[in-house]
Every structure is written in C-alpha cells, then in structure tokens.
C-alpha cells in the first residue's frame, strides 16, 4: 500500500495517495518496522509527500510523531516535496511541523541526510 524503498543508503517512503486515518497509522508503523528490520544497513528516512494535495493536522501530527519516534531509534528523518498550497495551509492553521527537517525534493533530502553522517 505504501511502498518503502532503499535508495542511496536511506529508506525512501513515497506517500502516493490520499490517506485515510487508518492508513496513516499503518504508515507510521511500517516506517518504524523498516528501520528496525534494516538493522543499521540504512542511515536515514526520506518521506516524500509530493503527491499529497492535503495535509491536515492529523497527517501532520503523524509525520512529526514518526520523525520523533525514528529519532528515538537513532535515525533522522527528512520530509520532502511539500506543495506550496500545503505549506501555506499548515502555516495558516498555526502548525509548522516543529522538529521536522524538510527539504525541497528527494535529492536535497538525501544530501541533507548524507551531511549528517
């Protein structure tokens, strides 16, 4: 449902479709399990949300939670590809994804993760 790939030594999760709340929760578990199962073979996590036309507070919360949980496990997360209207909407609502590293696209996200090594 949510493809989890290994790219350039990192975990790449591309959120392809609009998410129902139950799928969002599964997403979080899937990312954490992928980190665990990789047993150190991957360094960071790139979450690509290019395809998301809507990020409401629930999805935003899960993104922030997932990054915080991954950090506790010893892995950094970068969220990439946020659309302009999504960024505008989140800030208008008063939510700026505090504590979540973001980058413009997958390349920039991977470059940031590599720089943290």
């Amino acid at each position: 449902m949510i493809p989890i790939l290994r790219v350039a030594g990192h975990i790449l999760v591309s959120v392809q479709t609009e998410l129902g709340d139950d799928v969002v929760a599964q997403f979080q578990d899937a990312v954490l399990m992928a980190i665990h199962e990789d047993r150190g073979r991957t360094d960071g996590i790139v979450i690509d949300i290019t395809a998301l036309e809507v990020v409401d507070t629930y999805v935003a919360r899960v993104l922030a939670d997932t990054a915080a949980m991954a950090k506790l496990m010893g892995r950094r997360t970068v969220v990439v590809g946020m659309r302009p209207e999504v960024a505008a909407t989140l800030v208008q609502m008063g939510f700026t994804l505090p504590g979540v590293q973001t980058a413009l696209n997958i390349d920039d996200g991977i470059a940031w993760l590599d720089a943290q090594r």
Partner: protein
Amino acid sequence: MTPAAVSHQVSVTTQDDVVAARRQARAMAIELGFDAFAVAAITTATSELARNVFVHGGGGFVTIETLRTGERLGLCLTFCDEGPGIEDVEQALQGGFSTKRSLGLGLSGSRRLVDEFELTSTPGEGTKVRVVKWTRR
C-alpha cells in the same frame, strides 16, 4: 451565465466518509474556480471538521453547497452531529485544546482557513459548524 446552485450531502459515519467528504468539497471548490491555495484550505478544513463529526460527534453529515451573492461565488459547508457537544466553545476554539490524537488545532486551524465560521453547540445535543469561503473576484 449564472451557475446553478449545487448542494451535496455526505453522511459521515466512518473514516472513509471523511475522505469522501474531503473529495466532494475539493471537486466542488475546483468547479467553482477557486485557486490551488483556496482549494487546499477548503479541503483541509473539510478534513478537520468532518473528522470531528466522526471522532467526537459519533457521526453525522456534511452539507456542501454553492453560494452566489452579486458577483461573488462561495462554498458553504455545514458539519452536523448529534454527539455530546462542546462544553467550552471558547476554549475549543483557542486551539491547543487536547483532542483524540489530533493537534487540538483542527477547530481553531479550520477557522483561519475560511472567511466565515459559525459554531453552535449544545451539550448533550450536538454540534453544528458552518463555514463559508468566497472566491476572490
């Protein structure tokens, strides 16, 4: 040519209904000619408020209708439930109010995304939120 008023009602009793309400609002917003930012604002507010109907109100319905006042076109969304209601509306609207696994910003955040926002709630009887977004013309 004056577009005919359109009205849709979506029943919200499951998570999938929240997604359906969001899609319906999005389609109608695009049809009315809202720009990408306004479409995202409407869709996001619909997601927040429809989720409240499902999670806090125990289910209900969303009515989405087009409005026309002179040259202005608008989209009006009404979210109704017969749940426990909100004891302290002011507090709920201030944001940061803890809710079930959301940020507590859903209600206050939605208010900032629309042009008109009206919340009426009676403890024990339910909650009704009516929001309007106007096109910029």
